[in-house]
C-alpha cells in the first residue's frame, strides 16, 4: 500500500529556482509525487511579498500566493550568486533530474549556471526555463508582465466589452501557461531520457501557448476570409457568410445578468445539447416569457448561418427576462431539474458551495501548525487509479528543510551550516 501514497513521479528530484512566474511547474510535478526542492534566497523568495495574505498580515511567511502555489515542495535557502552557494547548487544538480528556472533571459548563464555548464556536471539533467517571450528571438529581452503577454498573444484584442478598451485578466494567468508548458516539456525530456541517457533543455515562452489558447476563429477568419475578430464581451458572434462573399455576424448572448450576478447559457443545437436548449425554451414559456417565436422554434433544424438577428434577439430576450426574475442559485437549481445547461458565473464562494466538488473530495484541509490553523485548499488536479495526486505537505517556510537536506542528505555538519549561513551562502 506504500505505493498508493506515493505519486507516479516519486523517484525524481526537481530543483525549483523559479519566481512567481514559474512556481506552478514544480508544484504540479510535486502533486504527482516528485521530490521538489524550492530554492530561495536567504531572506526568502521575493514573491512572498505578493498578497493576498493570511488574515491580511503582510508577512513573508503568510503570503497565500506563496502558499497556494508551492505545496508539495521542500524549501532551502541558497545564494546561487556566491561562489560557495554555486558550489552547493552544482552539487545538488549531480543528483537532480529537472531544474526549473524563470529568471530573465541570460541570468543563469551570467552566473555560470547555464544549461551547458550544468549538463557537464550531470548529462542526465533536464533544465526548463519559463519566460514570457522565450530565450531567443527579437522580444526575448522585452519586459513581459502579464498584461503585456495577454496583449501580444492575441488574447487582449478579443477580450472585453465592445464599448471599452480590450480587457486583461485580474490575475496573472499568462505565466501559468508558460509553467504548465515547461512541465510538459520537462516530462517529455524525462521520458525520452530513459532511451537516450541524456537530458536536454526546454524553452517555454508563455506567449506561444497563450496564442494557441486564442482558438481557431480569429486566425481562421483572418487568414482565410480577411475578417478580424474583435471583442464582443458577453455576446458570442456566430459568423454568417453574405452572398457577396464577405462575412456577417449574428450576435448571440452568452452571459446574461440575473438578480444577483451573472449566468451563462447558450442555445447549442448540436445533437447532445438539444435537450438543454429545448428545456430552456420550455422553461421560459412556462414562466410566461415565451413569445410567438419561442413557442414555434424548432431547434433541431436551426441554422446559425441563416437566422436573422431579430429572431435571435426575440428568443434570447425571453431567456433574459426570465433570468432577471431570479437569483443565480434559484436559476442553477431549476436548470438542473430541467436538464438545462445553465451555470452561474462562479466566484470562490460558489465553488466552495458546489456539491459536486465536495462529493468528489476535491477540497483538502491542510494543517498549518506554524499558524495554529487548518486551511482548506483545492486538492488534486486529477484523480488517479494508482498512486495519488494530492497535497502531501504545505508550502515550505523560509529555509525549513535546510537541516534535512544539507545535513541529513548531503552530509554537511552543523558547523558547516553555521559557516555557510555567516558567509551568506545559504
Amino acid at each position, binding site marked *: 500500500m506504500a505505493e498508493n501514497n506515493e505519486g507516479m*513521479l516519486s523517484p525524481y528530484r526537481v530543483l525549483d529556482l523559479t519566481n512567481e512566474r514559474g512556481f*506552478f511547474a514544480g508544484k504540479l510535478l510535486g502533486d504527482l509525487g516528485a521530490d521538489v526542492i524550492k530554492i530561495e534566497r536567504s531572506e526568502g523568495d521575493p514573491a512572498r511579498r505578493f498578497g*493576498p495574505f*493570511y488574515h*491580511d498580515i503582510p508577512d513573508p511567511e503568510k503570503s497565500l*500566493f506563496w502558499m497556494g502555489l508551492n505545496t508539495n515542495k521542500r524549501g532551502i535557502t541558497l545564494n546561487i550568486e556566491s561562489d560557495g552557494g554555486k558550489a552547493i547548487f552544482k552539487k545538488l544538480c549531480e543528483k537532480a533530474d529537472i531544474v526549473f528556472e524563470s529568471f530573465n533571459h541570460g541570468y543563469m548563464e551570467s552566473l555560470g549556471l547555464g544549461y551547458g555548464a550544468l549538463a557537464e556536471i550531470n548529462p542526465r539533467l533536464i533544465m526548463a526555463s519559463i519566460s514570457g517571450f*522565450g530565450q531567443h*528571438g527579437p*522580444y526575448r529581452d522585452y519586459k513581459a508582465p502579464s*498584461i503585456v503577454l*495577454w496583449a501580444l498573444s492575441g488574447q487582449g*484584442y478579443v*477580450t472585453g466589452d465592445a464599448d471599452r*478598451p480590450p480587457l486583461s*485578466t*485580474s490575475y496573472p494567468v499568462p505565466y*501559468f501557461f508558460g509553467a504548465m*508548458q515547461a*512541465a*510538459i516539456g520537462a*516530462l517529455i525530456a524525462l521520458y525520452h531520457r530513459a*532511451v537516450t541517457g541524456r537530458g*536536454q533543455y*526546454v524553452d517555454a*515562452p*508563455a506567449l*506561444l*501557448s497563450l*496564442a*494557441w*489558447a*486564442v*482558438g*481557431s*476563429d*480569429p486566425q481562421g*477568419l483572418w487568414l*482565410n476570409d480577411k475578417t*478580424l*475578430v474583435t471583442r464582443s464581451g*458577453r455576446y458570442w458572434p456566430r459568423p454568417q457568410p453574405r452572398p457577396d462573399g464577405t462575412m456577417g455576424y449574428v450576435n448571440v448572448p452568452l*452571459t446574461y445578468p440575473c438578480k444577483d450576478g451573472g449566468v*451563462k447559457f*447558450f442555445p447549442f443545437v*448540436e445533437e447532445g*445539447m438539444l435537450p438543454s436548449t429545448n428545456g430552456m425554451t420550455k422553461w421560459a414559456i412556462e414562466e410566461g416569457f415565451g413569445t410567438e417565436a419561442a413557442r414555434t422554434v424548432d431547434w433541431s433544424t436551426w441554422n446559425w448561418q441563416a437566422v436573422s438577428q431579430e429572431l435571435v434577439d426575440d428568443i434570447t430576450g425571453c431567456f433574459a427576462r426570465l433570468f432577471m426574475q431570479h437569483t443565480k442559485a434559484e436559476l442553477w437549481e431549476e436548470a438542473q431539474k430541467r436538464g438545462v445547461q445553465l*451555470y452561474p458565473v*462562479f466566484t*470562490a464562494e460558489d465553488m*466552495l458551495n458546489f456539491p459536486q466538488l465536495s462529493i*468528489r473530495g476535491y477540497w483538502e484541509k491542510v494543517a498549518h501548525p506554524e499558524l495554529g490553523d487548518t*486551511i*482548506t*485548499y483545492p*486538492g488534486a*488536479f486529477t*484523480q488517479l*487509479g*494508482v*498512486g495519488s495526486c494530492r497535497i502531501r505537505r504545505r508550502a515550505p517556510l523560509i529555509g525549513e528543510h535546510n537541516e534535512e537536506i544539507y545535513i541529513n542528505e548531503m552530509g554537511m555538519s552543523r558547523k558547516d551550516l553555521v559557516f555557510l549561513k555567516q558567509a551568506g551562502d545559504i
Partner: protein
Amino acid sequence: MTSRPFEGINILDFTWTATGPGTLNPLAFYGATIIKVESRGRFDALRSLGPFKDGIPEPEHSYAFAYSQAGKRYNITLNLSQPKGMEMIKKLVAWADIVADSYSTGTMERWGLDYEGVKKIKPDIIMMRTCMHGHTGPLSKQHGQGFILTALSGVDALISWPDRAPSGAYGPFTDYIAPQFNTIALIAALDYRRRTGKGQYIDQSQHEAAMQVISPLILDYTVNQRDIAPCGNRLSYAAPHGIYRCKGDDRWCAIAVFTDEEWASFCKVIGKPALTEDPKFATLLKRKENEDALDKLVESWTGRRTAEDVMKLMQAAGVAAGVVSNAKDMAEDPQMKYYNFFVEREHPVQKKIPFYHGPGFRLSDETYEVGRSNLLGEHNDYVFTKILGVSDEEFAGLVAEGVI
C-alpha cells in the same frame, strides 16, 4: 539517429471537441501514433462548429475542428452499435497503450469500454478520461461545454470591469487550461508504466483542474472570506497599468510601470521628464491615488502614436509595453515567426490551412512534427488492413455492412 520520445506509443483516441485533442497533440508532436475513432453518424462535435471554409457547414470544412487536430493522427470511422464494430474496437484496444475519451459518464460504459472493460482486454492500459465534472458524483453524466467551464472555474469572474457584469473569457478558455494538466498526468503515467509495468486510470474533472490556477484566490476566500474582485486592467502594485488607445482604428497598447525607475523612464519617453517631480505622480502610492488622471495623461501621448511605436519606444527604455495584437498582428508577429509558431498544411478539402501550430515549448534536442486534420475515415484502409491485419476481402465486407 535516436528514436522520437513517444515512438511506439499507441493511442486510441475517442476524444472529441477541444480538451481531448489538446491533451493528446503534444504526444503526437513527439512521435506517438494516434488512431482517432469517429463514426459517420456521430462525428466529432467540432466538425459542426464554424467558422467553415467558404461558409459551407460541412464536417470537412470546419476551422474549429482543423485547429484542434494539429497533432498527426489516423482517422477511422467505426459503427460501435454493430457487433463487428465492437470486435474491431476491441482489437484496437489491445493495440493501444493509451485509451483516451472525453465523454461524460455513460458513453464509454454503454460500449463496455470504461476502465474495467478496457483493462480486461489490456491489463496495463492507461486510460485517460476527461469531462466537465469528472466521472464520479451526481453531475458526472452532464455534457461539458467550455463556455460553461469558464463560468464555473472563476475565469469569467476574473475578466471583468469592476463596475459592471463580467465580460468573461473570449471563447472556451478552460479548454486550453484543462488539457495541459492531462498531458502532464499522461506522460507521468507512461513513465510510471515503463518503470513499474502498471497501467493507470486518469479521471479528470476539467472544472477541478482549471480551478488549480487560482488557488491563491480560493485561499483568500477560505482564509479571509474575501471573494474574487475583478479590477479591469489595473493592478494594485503598478501604475500606469492598462491598455491604452493608440493611433488608428481599434489600435491599442498595453503599458505597465512598476518601479519609480520605470516611471522616470516612462516620463522621459513621453518627453516630460519633469513629471517625476509632480507630487501627484511622484510615487507609486500617489500614482495609484491619481490613476484616472494618470491614464488620461498616458492616452494623450499614446493616442498620437501607433501601437507599434509605443511598444518599441517603451521597451527600448526598459518600460513594459505590448501591442494588443489582432489576428493579423499575430500572423505577422516577429517573435511568433521566430518560433515558427503558426505553420501551414495542405488539407484535401480546405486547401491551405495556415494556422496549425506545434507545442508551446521547444526542446533543445528534439524536433516536433505538426500534422493536419483528417477527413472522416481517411485512414480506414490503412488502419484496418495494415495495423489490424484485416484481409482485403473482410475489409470490403465491413464497408459493405456499414461497420466502417
